[in-house]
């Protein structure tokens, strides 16, 4: 076996290494896609992974004044309170998860005790555990004895009704609107702006302060009194309505669908589409669109369509043979050794993941085999992967267009670029918000 390590990037016959470079980039691009296709998106996984509070934290609670039940889901004030610094406060064992639209939990007042000085709210990590939530900075609390909302100072604001024995009170965070909201017996009491100071992780917090007060907490293990799903739906709807009011340039969707069909070579669909559009889309627009095609994505439309069909049907021999006829510079039969070596050495440095370099060399080698389906890279020709291969070939052909200005045009349709931009903007905005809120997931929309 040829053991030269130098210049594995050059093709055998010394033709343009630009094309090699392009093919290499394309190969990498689609391989990455292939890897991603089979795994869940990073954002999807992280939303599942974020841990939610399940029980009360017995370690840092103001132990001298209260008792937490063994199941860690209820608390009782045991002594007689004397002043403002002997509140029995307890936080949840984990902070409220942030990568979602809303977080919510409830308490049930089993016994309002001597004075009904119960509170529900959110506090930060270093909270002084002998003070009511809301009485210190970086905390907020809705108090049962006076119905006021306290936000970081000793004086509270008028907020809602008082609550007592038998009431179920809930507290939540709305990351989209950056608000706290509270409910009583299944009804929304109100919302308040989540001040910028309340950054960082917030812990669901409950407090009891007079003799015999007893409160049970529900972190979602039981059904809530408040219809959270409905509230969430309403909040989504509110935002959707704001978005719907935005106006779009006329016929933009039509144009993008058309570009998409052109880009991927769905010729038959495009022809039907154009025919049907004649009666609805103003002719002026169609003319403009055709004249404006910078990257000329109509290039080799028929050939790309034919190749896609052949690949999808599994007729690989026919596909390769046609590809050789039309674009000999793409198919490098006999360059297998080079391709394999190139794959192993050059491309491996781009990927630090174990086992991935095998996939890399496989895909690059695909076009180099005489009989690919009988080769060890034949798995790429399984039905599920065929679309990926078809897309790769499509991009490679587009790259042979002398009018191609940049790789971007071959790799991604306009539609894809717009969707990527949307995802990136949402992620960036979430990041600017301290990672709070949902990411954009196309699958969710569909």
């Amino acid at each position, binding site marked *: 076996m040829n053991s030269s390590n130098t210049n594995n990037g050059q093709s055998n016959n010394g033709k343009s290494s630009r094309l090699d470079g392009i093919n290499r980039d394309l190969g990498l691009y689609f391989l990455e896609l292939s890897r991603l296709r089979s795994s869940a998106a990073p954002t999807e996984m992280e939303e599942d992974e974020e841990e939610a509070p399940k029980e009360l934290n017995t370690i840092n609670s103001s132990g001298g004044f209260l008792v937490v039940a063994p199941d860690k889901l209820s608390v009782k004030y045991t002594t007689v309170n004397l002043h403002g610094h002997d509140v029995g406060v307890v936080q949840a064992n984990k902070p409220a998860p942030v990568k979602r639209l809303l977080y919510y939990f409830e308490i049930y007042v089993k016994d309002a005790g001597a004075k009904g000085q119960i509170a529900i709210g959110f506090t930060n990590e270093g909270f002084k555990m002998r003070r009511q939530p809301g009485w210190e900075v970086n905390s907020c609390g809705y108090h049962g004895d006076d119905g006021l909302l306290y936000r970081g100072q000793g004086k509270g604001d008028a907020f809602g009704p008082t609550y007592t024995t038998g009431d179920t009170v809930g507290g939540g965070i709305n990351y989209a609107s950056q608000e706290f909201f509270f409910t009583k017996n299944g009804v929304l009491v109100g919302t308040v702006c989540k001040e910028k100071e309340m950054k960082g992780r917030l812990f669901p917090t409950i407090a009891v302060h007079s003799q015999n007060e007893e409160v049970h907490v529900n972190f979602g293990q039981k059904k809530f009194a408040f219809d959270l799903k409905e509230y969430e739906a309403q909040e989504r709807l509110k935002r959707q309505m704001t*978005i719907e009011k935005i106006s*779009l340039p006329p016929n*933009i969707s039509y144009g993008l669908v058309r570009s998409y069909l052109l880009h991927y070579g769905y010729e038959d669909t495009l022809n039907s589409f154009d025919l049907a559009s004649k009666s609805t889309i103003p002719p002026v627009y169609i003319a403009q669109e055709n004249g404006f095609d910078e990257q000329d994505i109509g290039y080799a439309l028929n050939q790309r369509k034919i190749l896609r069909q052949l690949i999808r049907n599994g007729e690989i021999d026919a596909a390769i043979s046609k590809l050789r006829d039309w674009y000999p510079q793409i198919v490098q039969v006999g360059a297998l050794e080079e391709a394999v070596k190139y794959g192993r050495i050059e491309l491996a440095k781009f990927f630090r993941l174990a086992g991935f370099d095998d996939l890399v060399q496989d895909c690059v080698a695909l076009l180099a085999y005489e009989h690919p389906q009988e080769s060890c890279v034949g798995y790429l020709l399984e039905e599920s992967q065929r679309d990926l291969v078809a897309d790769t070939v499509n991009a490679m052909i587009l790259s042979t267009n002398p009018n191609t200005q940049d790789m971007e045009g071959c790799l991604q349709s306009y539609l894809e670029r717009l969707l990527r931009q949307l995802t990136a903007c949402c*992620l960036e905005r979430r990041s600017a918000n301290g990672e709070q809120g949902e990411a*954009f997931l196309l699958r969710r929309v*569909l």
Partner: protein
Amino acid sequence: MASSKKLISREEWEKRLKLNNVKIRKEDMNKLVMNFLVTEGYVEAAEKFRMESGTHPDIDLATITDRMAVKKAVQCGNVEDAIEKINDLNPEILDTNPQLFFQLQQQRLIELIRNGKVEEALEFAQEELAPRGEENQSFLEELERTISLLVFEDTSNCPVGELLDISQRLKTATEVNAAVLTSQSHEKDPKLPSLLKMLIWAQNQLDKKAAYPCINDLSNARLEDPTF
């Protein structure tokens, strides 16, 4: 009060757009396109797309054909035919949608006027539309506007000339399409435009916190360098 906006360079932004952070699956884009074709009623194109891409339409294509026949009838000005077809599909559609029914009747009146059938037009207006106008102020106003077409010699220049325009037919056709879709329990709007609006919104929102490469022209999806 000047808030400090974070500056994200083009290079930095393109890194973020790279595959690892941002995953858009081809199947999902195909579904989006199919959803567009189906909702807008491009039956043949949807069928071809199913064959070429292997994407399954989210509703029965046969129901699209019926719906498209109705839409076409309206677009061609055959309103009576359209109404008959709608009632064949589902008589409740027009029953529960008096606004739409009035719009169709109005279109019928417009077509009669367009074809110079003045007597028939007046008779139709009196018998069918005037009673509706009595019940509803906005219907009455529309009726009056339409009838006023008869007054003008040169309809292309008169204030209500737009009623004779093709766009009026298209408007009604779109409303009919939406009503039928809704009655078939399908969302009446394709998802693609909402996503585009979401993009504009998301860019505006991020704009408050950062200067970064935007896409200003949706039709060519070109990134423009951040202005600071």
